[in-house]
């Protein structure tokens, strides 16, 4: 449990606190001259990069699970739940 708390402390320092800091730093100061096309495209591009990376990892994990735990795998061992009478 202590390690779990430690993990979340590290995570919060790395991710959560900077994000909150950024979120609450907004003031009423005037904006800059910027090209909204660039801002919106950049956001879209980064979100898509993350989405495709996560999608690849999830799909890869699922394919590995199906391959590794298929019945015909020589290393497959029946679990106690499935019983040992094969």
């Amino acid at each position, binding site marked *: 449990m202590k390690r779990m708390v430690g993990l979340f402390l590290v995570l919060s320092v790395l*991710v959560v606190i900077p994000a909150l800091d*950024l979120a609450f730093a907004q003031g009423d100061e005037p*904006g800059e001259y910027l090209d909204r096309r660039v801002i919106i495209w950049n*956001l879209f591009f980064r979100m898509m990069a993350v989405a495709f990376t996560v999608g690849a990892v999830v799909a890869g994990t699922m394919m590995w699970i199906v391959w590794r735990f298929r019945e015909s795998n020589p290393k497959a061992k029946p679990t106690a739940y499935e019983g040992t009478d094969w």
Partner: protein
Amino acid sequence: MSGHSNWPEWIYIAVVVALMTWVGAEAWNAERLVEEVPEGAEVIKVTGQQWFWTFEHEDGTIEIGELHVEVGKAYKFEIMSKDVIHSFNIHDYVVLMDAVPGRINTVWFAPTDVGTHDIQCREYCGLIHYNMRGTLYVEEPSS
């Protein structure tokens, strides 16, 4: 449960929470950047009605169906509607904001290049919606 480690689940939850936080912060920041109007932006009152756009500049000049602006200057549109819901769209500059009766919605942009661009209504607003168009003329600064 003995003989079973929860670590992969906890790591998975942490990764998901971190990703969601990052996505939220990035989106929030982009929205903030896009919504903050720069100082000195000229206000243009945009009125949508079936089926044309009217533009009123700060100096009182009124244009119908066309809008003349200067390159490199910021403009803040105050968008309203006289009848039904319309949506003011300059596709080439990713400007899109609903025109709602009884409300004033705002959006700003700063044209970067001289040229002409289409203005259109992006909310179905009746029979001639398809032709509720205008033209944006981005010109060299006059002074």
